[in-house]
C-alpha cells in the first residue's frame, strides 16, 4: 500500500545466502524483531527506509484532503472531531519518520526527497474532497483500507516500525468509525445529503481499491519483502478482504457500490468485483492525478515558509546554551 512502488532485489534462497544473511533470515523466520543497531542486509535497510518513509509521507500529505474541510465542518463537534483526526495523522507521520530515522536517515533528508519527487506517497491523496460526504468516505474507505494494511504490519520484523504501527493502530480505531458515522448521517439525511454520500462513494471506490497496489502475484519485490516480513499479505488478499468487509457496510447505508460486476461468489466465499483502471493509477503516480500539484505544492510551501522559524529556534537554543555556559564559568 504505502510501499506501492518500493522495489527490492530478488529473493535469495537460504543456500545462496552468506552466513550473516542466513542467520538474519532465520531470526525473522523465528518471529524475532530486528532492532536498529543490529546487523541487517543493506537491501533490508534500504527497502525499509523507502517503505516507512513513504508511509510517513502518506500520513502528512494525507492531512491535506481532509484538512481542506476543517474550516467548513458543519457543526462545532464535527469540526473538533475532524481536527483531532487530521492532527492524529500528523502524529502518525511523526512516529513513522522517527522509526525511519533509527535506520540512519534524517527526517529532513526524507522531507527533501518528498519535496523533490524522488519519494512518493499514497496515490489516494491526490484525489480531491469535493463535498462534505467525502470526509465521511475518506474515513470509511480510505482509513478502512489503511487499517486493513496496518493491522498486520504491527507484526512486521523491524522493531521500531512494528512499535509505531501498534501505537498508530490504537489511535486510528476511531478514524474509520467517525467516517462511517458521517456517512450514516448523510445517507439518512435529506435527498441532497444522500446524493452527496453516493457521489462520494462513486468517486472514492476505485481509488480506494487502488490503494492496495497492482496485483503482486508474480512480483519478485513482494516475495522478498514478505520473506523479510516487512510486507505481510499480498495486495490481492488485502483488496479482497477490503471489498468483502465494505460491501455490507454500503448496503447498510443504502448506497450502491459503483460496480455492475460486483457479485457474491459462494465458491470462494468472497465478492467478485471489477479491477480499478490501472492506467489511471499509473497516471496519478506519475504526477497526473487531479491534485498532485496542490498536494505537493502545499507541503513544499509549508516547509519553505517555515525555514526561518526552524532556524530561529535553533539559533535561540544555541544562544541560550552559550549564555548558560558563560554564567557557569562566571560563577566558578
Amino acid at each position, binding site marked *: 500500500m504505502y510501499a506501492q512502488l518500493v522495489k527490492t532485489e530478488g529473493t535469495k534462497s537460504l543456500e545462496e545466502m552468506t552466513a550473516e544473511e542466513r542467520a538474519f533470515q532465520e531470526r525473522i523466520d523465528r518471529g524475532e524483531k530486528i532492532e536498529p543497531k543490529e546487523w541487517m542486509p543493506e537491501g533490508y535497510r534500504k527497502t525499509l527506509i523507502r517503505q516507512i518513509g513513504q508511509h510517513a509521507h502518506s500520513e502528512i500529505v494525507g492531512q491535506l484532503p481532509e484538512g481542506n474541510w476543517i474550516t467548513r465542518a458543519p457543526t462545532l463537534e464535527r469540526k473538533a472531531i475532524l481536527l*483531532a483526526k487530521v492532527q492524529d495523522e500528523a*502524529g502518525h507521520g511523526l512516529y513513522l519518520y522517527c522509526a525511519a*530515522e533509527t535506520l540512519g536517515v534524517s527526517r529532513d533528508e526524507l522531507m527533501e526527497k518528498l519535496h523533490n519527487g524522488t519519494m512518493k506517497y499514497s496515490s489516494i491523496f491526490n484525489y480531491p474532497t469535493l463535498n462534505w460526504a467525502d470526509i465521511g468516505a475518506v474515513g470509511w474507505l480510505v482509513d478502512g483500507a489503511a487499517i486493513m494494511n496496518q493491522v498486520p504490519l504491527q507484526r512486521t520484523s523491524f522493531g521500531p516500525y512494528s512499535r509505531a504501527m501498534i501505537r498508530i493502530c490504537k489511535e486510528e480505531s476511531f478514524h474509520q468509525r467517525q467516517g462511517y458515522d458521517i456517512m450514516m448521517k448523510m445517507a439518512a439525511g435529506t435527498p441532497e445529503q444522500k446524493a452527496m454520500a453516493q457521489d462520494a462513494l462513486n468517486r472514492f471506490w476505485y481509488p480506494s481499491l487502488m490503494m492496495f497496489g497492482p496485483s503482486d502475484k508474480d512480483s519478485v519485490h513482494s516475495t522478498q519483502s514478505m520473506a523479510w516480513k516487512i510486507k505481510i499479505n499480498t495486495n490481492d488478499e488485502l483488496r479482497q478482504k477490503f471489498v468483502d468487509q465494505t460491501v455490507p457496510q454500503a448496503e447498510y447505508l443504502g448506497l450502491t457500490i459503483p460496480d455492475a460486476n460486483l457479485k457474491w461468489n459462494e465458491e470462494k466465499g468472497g465478492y467478485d468485483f471489477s479491477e480499478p483502471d490501472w492506467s489511471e493509477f499509473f497516471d496519478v503516480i506519475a504526477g497526473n492525478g487531479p491534485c498532485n500539484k496542490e498536494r505537493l505544492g502545499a507541503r513544499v510551501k509549508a516547509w519553505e515558509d517555515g525555514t526561518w522559524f*526552524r532556524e530561529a529556534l535553533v539559533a*535561540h537554543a544555541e544562544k541560550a546554551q552559550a549564555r548558560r555556559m558563560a554564567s557557569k564559568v562566571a560563577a566558578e
Partner: protein
Amino acid sequence: MSSEWPLWEVFIRGQHGLNHRHVGSLHAPDAEMAIKNARDVYTRRNEGVSIWVVRSSEIAASSPSDKGPLFEPSNSKVYRHPTFFDIPEEVGHM
C-alpha cells in the same frame, strides 16, 4: 546553518504511578521545547502525568553483539524467581 532539530527520546509516566516508559521520539531545538512537544504529541489521549526527555545522541546503549554475555548468564540464576521455591500450601500466601 543546519536548521534540523535534534532528536529526543520521550519517556512518560502514566496515570498509575508506574515507571516512566519509553513512548517514542520527536524533534525539538532544546530540552524545554522537547518537553512541551512531548506533552502535545504523546499525551493527546490523557496518557501521562510526568515527562522525561533525553537527547537520542546521549543514550548509551548495550551493543547487540554483547547480547550473549550480557543477558544469558542470568538465565541460569533461576533462584532469583519466586517460582523456584516450593512452599507447602499449608503455609499460606507468601
